[in-house]
């Protein structure tokens, strides 16, 4: 792996991302992507952030969390309340930062005791925490209780969505390649063996959990500043499950799979909107069938890597070249 920031793969990625951004912006400007499709795309961006950040916790580190909606709620409400007081981009930035701080503290409080638990117990403890967060929000004055916040300024625009999404993907993919990331993968493979190799398992689990929580709160914040309205009902445990479904549907441990799954599920939801009554039945049945026939998800643990792709092309090209030379 190249440490060089200006390596070929990094440059190609930057160009690809910029082209994608320019293309989408152009389509939006020209009105080919109308406002309905725009909101679908923005939702997909939010879901991608949530899915990659949960994948960090569940797929990479192997810690089964059902509490992602709670951290999202913290981010959303912090940004919502602060931008209502300071309705400009400084307010939004402040809101996002406050959300980061609160969700970091909450994630530490949640994770330090509970990450000692295993599997299902951890899942149910995180579910409990996220429900507690939601119930507190539902009963606080500053959050306007069950009625929710309204009139949040619409500050999030397409470039912000896109930037946050790319940022989240970058943070998660580079975390996987970093030293703590490798420690997390080791913990996921075999916790006892990892501990025997001198990895402080609790510490790295907490790190992954906090990074995931911060990104979830970022997703919440940009969501709050796009949809005007926030209610506690948006952050029930069904929301956490929706995110988990994206991670498992794509393939646990693969970031590209989470991105693809978030896009596919977003499009599926858009398509199913027309069958309001049947939507959830089809969704549920699809989950069951998917888990029975392809439990490892669409992509499994396969990760898209530009570097490998380039090498393969190069190898093929030189193969062809050599063959041609050989046969003359």
């Amino acid at each position, binding site marked *: 792996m190249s440490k060089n920031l200006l390596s070929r793969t990094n440059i190609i990625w930057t160009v690809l991302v910029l082209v994608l951004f320019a293309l989408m912006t152009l389509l939006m400007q020209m009105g080919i992507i109308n406002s309905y499709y725009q909101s679908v795309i923005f939702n997909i961006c939010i879901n991608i952030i949530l899915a990659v950040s949960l994948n960090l916790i569940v797929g990479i580190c192997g810690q089964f969390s059902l509490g992602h909606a709670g951290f999202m709620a913290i981010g959303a409400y912090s940004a919502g309340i602060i931008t209502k007081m300071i309705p400009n981009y400084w307010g939004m930035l402040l809101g996002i930062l406050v959300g980061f701080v609160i969700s970091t503290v909450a994630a530490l409080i949640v994770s330090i*005791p509970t990450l000692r638990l295993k599997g*299902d117990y951890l899942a149910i403890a995180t*579910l*409990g925490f996220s429900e507690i967060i939601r*119930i507190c929000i539902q*009963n606080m004055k500053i959050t306007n209780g069950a009625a929710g916040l309204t009139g949040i300024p619409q500050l999030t625009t397409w470039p912000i969505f896109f930037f946050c999404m790319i940022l989240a993907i970058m943070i998660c993919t580079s975390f996987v390649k970093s030293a703590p990331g490798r420690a997390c993968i080791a913990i996921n493979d075999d916790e006892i063996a990892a501990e025997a190799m001198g990895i402080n398992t609790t510490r790295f689990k907490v790190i992954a959990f906090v990074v995931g929580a911060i990104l979830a709160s970022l997703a919440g914040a940009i969501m709050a500043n796009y949809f005007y309205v926030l209610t506690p009902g948006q952050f029930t445990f069904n929301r956490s499950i929706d995110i988990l479904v994206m991670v498992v549907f794509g393939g646990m441990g693969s970031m590209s799979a989470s991105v693809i799954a978030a896009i596919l599920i977003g499009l599926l939801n858009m398509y199913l909107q027309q069958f309001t*009554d049947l939507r959830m039945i089809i969704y*549920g049945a699809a989950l069951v069938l998917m*888990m029975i026939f392809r*439990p490892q998800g669409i992509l499994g643990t396969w990760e898209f890597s530009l570097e490998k792709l380039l090498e393969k092309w190069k190898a093929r090209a030189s193969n062809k070249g050599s063959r041609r030379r050989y046969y003359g």
Partner: protein
Amino acid sequence: MDQFLQQLVNGLSLGSIYALVALGYTMVYGIIKLINFAHGDVYMIGAYTAYWVTTYFGLSFLPALLVCMVVCGLLGVLIERIAYKPLRKAPRITALITAIGVSYVIEYTTQFFMGTSVRTYPPLLPNQSWTFGPITITYLQFVIFSVTLVLCVLLTLIIQKTKIGRAMRAVSADENAAKLMGISVDNTISFTFFLGSALAGAAGILVGIYYNSATPLMGMVPGLKAFVAAVFGGIGSIPGAMVGGLFIGICETLVTAYGNSMYRDAIVYGILILVLIIRPAGLFGKAEKEKV
């Protein structure tokens, strides 16, 4: 003090219902290590079955109870055979997602056919109550206590004294060894689902009459709370589930009576987390040593 005793009685009747649902969770978890998220929905189907047979067929309470238990038991077996059996060797998270998918299918299929409107029941039980000093027990509460008690005793007898009960315990202890001893693991697991779901069906009719309402999404929150009860008592332990259910019911009622009812659910989850941190195996559970 008088009010406290009365609240205790109310809490016990609510707790009995949680205990019945928690028993199903604990048995299924004990045998195949799966959090059966669809269990709360089986309970909802119990409430709807009760609505149907009492409103359209005019059954009285006891026959309706039996019909509910049989219908829910069969539904449980059906769910197990279709959705969980192919995944018995799969990772836990896969099975959990399947359970969630099944739960969505049941909830929204019911909503599709029955609509979101609240269904109410015809009067099934006499509107009578007895007063013992400071406390009043309604006929319905008495029925809830006695049904729960009888079912729990029956369940304990089945598990401890019958051949199939012994098979259940054996499969739960070691599936492969049980298979080698000639036990049909598949049938035993299906029977466990039948028993657990039948208890949920009984809880469904009881709660339906208690609150006089049935809605398609009524199973979600009580399902989670019953799961909390099962964890509290030590998941996999039958007496644990009963005690846990009663405890959660009493806590909830007392919080509603003396504290802020809005924080009722938060308290339940708080208890769950405390139990998990202090004693992860629950009250009656056995702590398992980690083997390398």
